[in-house]
């Protein structure tokens, strides 16, 4: 039930597009602000293929068509599940309000039940559809909840990056996100997080994120392929491969795709 949330926000966090020229202030915090503030278009349509691979090599495939749009400062996103057959036609609507005093809203259409349920989850440690992504990965970082420091500057795939450590300022953030600390690799030319190493609460597991494919689509830097893997000690525990395709920004999207009452129709 809780496998669904804002895929698009993941894109916003990990793969946000170019934000212009680097200002002179290159402190860790200001770099992270540029990552967070990049333009991501007024709306987006994306098809996501997700391959889950367990430690024994067993593969499972998930396929989703997602739609997102900005309504003022609020963000609406909907997802329609295409694969596997068991969850086909399941649909999810998320409304994230900029005003933190308002509760975000989530609705899930379950075709087997022939009904749309209102659900809720402020706990962001849940796995997204069984993948190595959690909802915390798909949400924006609240920069005020972390301290940032530049560890070093290096190259990833021959491109210069900043390596920035993000440390939660309190235990509550750790509990809400599930991460003790994170290291982000930010490409200097476009402020995209191209890699991340995140230590999970408990300390035994580490999550690695690697953006293998990055393209500029309609002027927006967009990840097209991302690998995420979870290690327990030195052992690989689980992997997820994400592929984004059919990506379109700033399109006219049918209003009904963001209305609960229209979910029964499907895509």
């Amino acid at each position: 039930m809780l496998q669904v949330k804002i895929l698009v926000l993941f894109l916003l966090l990990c793969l946000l597009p170019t934000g212009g020229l680097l200002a002179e202030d290159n402190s860790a915090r200001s770099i992270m602000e540029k990552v967070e503030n990049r333009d991501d278009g007024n709306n987006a349509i994306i098809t996501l293929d997700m391959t889950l691979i367990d430690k024994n090599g067993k593969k499972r495939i998930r396929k989703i068509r997602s739609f997102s749009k900005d309504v003022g400062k609020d963000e609406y996103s909907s997802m329609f599940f295409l694969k596997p057959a068991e969850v086909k036609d399941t649909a999810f609507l998320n409304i994230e309000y900029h005003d933190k005093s308002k509760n975000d809203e989530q609705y899930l259409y379950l075709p087997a039940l022939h009904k749309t349920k209102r659900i809720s989850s402020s706990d962001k440690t849940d796995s997204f559809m069984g993948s190595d992504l959690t909802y915390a990965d798909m949400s924006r970082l609240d920069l005020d909840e972390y301290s940032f420091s530049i560890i070093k500057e290096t190259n990833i795939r021959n491109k210069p990056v900043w390596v920035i450590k993000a440390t939660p300022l309190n235990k509550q953030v750790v509990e809400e996100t599930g991460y003790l600390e994170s290291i982000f690799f930010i490409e200097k030319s476009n402020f995209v997080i191209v890699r991340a190493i995140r230590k999970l609460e408990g300390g035994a597991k580490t999550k690695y994120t690697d953006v293998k494919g990055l393209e500029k689509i309609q002027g927006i830097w967009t990840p097209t392929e991302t690998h995420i893997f979870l290690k327990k000690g030195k052992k690989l525990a689980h992997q997820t491969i994400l592929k984004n395709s059919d990506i379109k920004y700033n399109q006219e999207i049918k209003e009904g795709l963001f209305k609960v009452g229209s979910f029964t129709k499907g895509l």
Partner: protein
Amino acid sequence: MFTRQISFSFLLFLLLFFGVSIGYADLPRVVEPTTQINTSDTDADALDSLMGDFDSAELSFMQINSKHEQDRPSEISGNISYFNSYTLSSWKPYPGSAPNEKFWASSKIRANLKIKYFFSDDLFLKLNGHAFRDNIYEEHGRFKYTQEILDEYEDEVRADEFFIRYSATPSVSITAGKQIVVWGTSDNLRVVDVINPLDNRELGIDDIENIRLASNMLKVDAQMDDWMLSGMIITEAEPDQDPVYGSPYFVFSQQLPAFKSPKSERDKHAFEYALSLSRKVLDIDIHGYLASIYNNQAHLELDLLTGNVRRHLAKLDMLGFTGTTGRGNWIYKSEFAYFKGLKFLNSQDAEFIRSDVMLGLEYYGLTNASLAIEAAYKKISNFKNILENSPEMPQESEQNFAIRFNGDYLHNSLHILVLAMASGPVGKDGNIIRLSADYDIRDSVTLTLGGVLFGGGESLLFQQLSGNDQIFAKAKFSF
């Protein structure tokens, strides 16, 4: 029975305690600085070894066809399953026969097929049907069972949904044919969910998603800004599909009288009408319902001319409301319904009024899991003492409770369900506990293990059901 009630109460206690603990845990806490977070191995010196993990991870890269299949004129999906169940209690397979000891109760092969055909972006046809055959009757000897059991449980082919939908405008659609319409917010207790009849042939064995029976209707849905309006004309009044004579789920000692179809009785009035209207008001999702429908639960009626008793569906007027809202990890649900026109054999000239209320809570703060608690209260306001002995077994007031836990584990490979339902004050009328675990061996193959325990209480229904404890296993291939 006492042991069963104790075990139910214990489960109830555990779940409630769990829920209360969770609720407490959800309260705002004093923020403490995280001075204990160990960051030593993520310093610059240690970073290189972590970086090496990106290269050493044996990622099994595979090509994925990510093209969106938009141009398909049709979609076909479905599944084939094999279901086996084993009865833990003794049961008389035929009235008057010696009770069987523990035995295999079902060996069922079932196929579900769903076809969607798109004539255009605005017009599609949907067919959703199933077929099954239960070989257990052949294996045990068909002569041991009543003909009604063989007719209802041995094999079946049925179109579960068969409709055509036309989107006249982006906000108006028309659907005609056999379809399922679910009203309400509850997953377990039905208060306003009155449109479709239910398949009750194997109470507790099937989850609610498999037990709704489609009705023939014409439905119009319209979205106007924040308002959602649905109107429907149901052309076929059907009763619930209940257990039959000789079934372990059948409560009565003799066969029930035949049905008198409302269609043949009064053709002019056989149509049912229903309307729902919804919108959000101050973060609360409000739904209003109005219906003139037939009661899917039949009552008995004496034909004064022939002296025969027949089963009949009473025409009901219904008014209902639901409200749902969320705060943090919690969802709050409520339902109310008012019914006028209930009928019972012992006072067949009178029409009775019943009001139903449901309150529910859902908690989503557990990692990869949710917990729902629901309680319903139903009361017949003009109840008469003479109804106490009416064969439909009406009660002046009814209480029902449900607790449902859903969890997804092992990267969504393992799905756990615990559902406990009880009737009467503190569940004294009886209860049902259903536990199941679904494990996805692959995307297309799922194994299920589970059990259903019936706790007999003061209710005749639960006393009868208490002999039906079962464990079951199912293998399902989806395509």
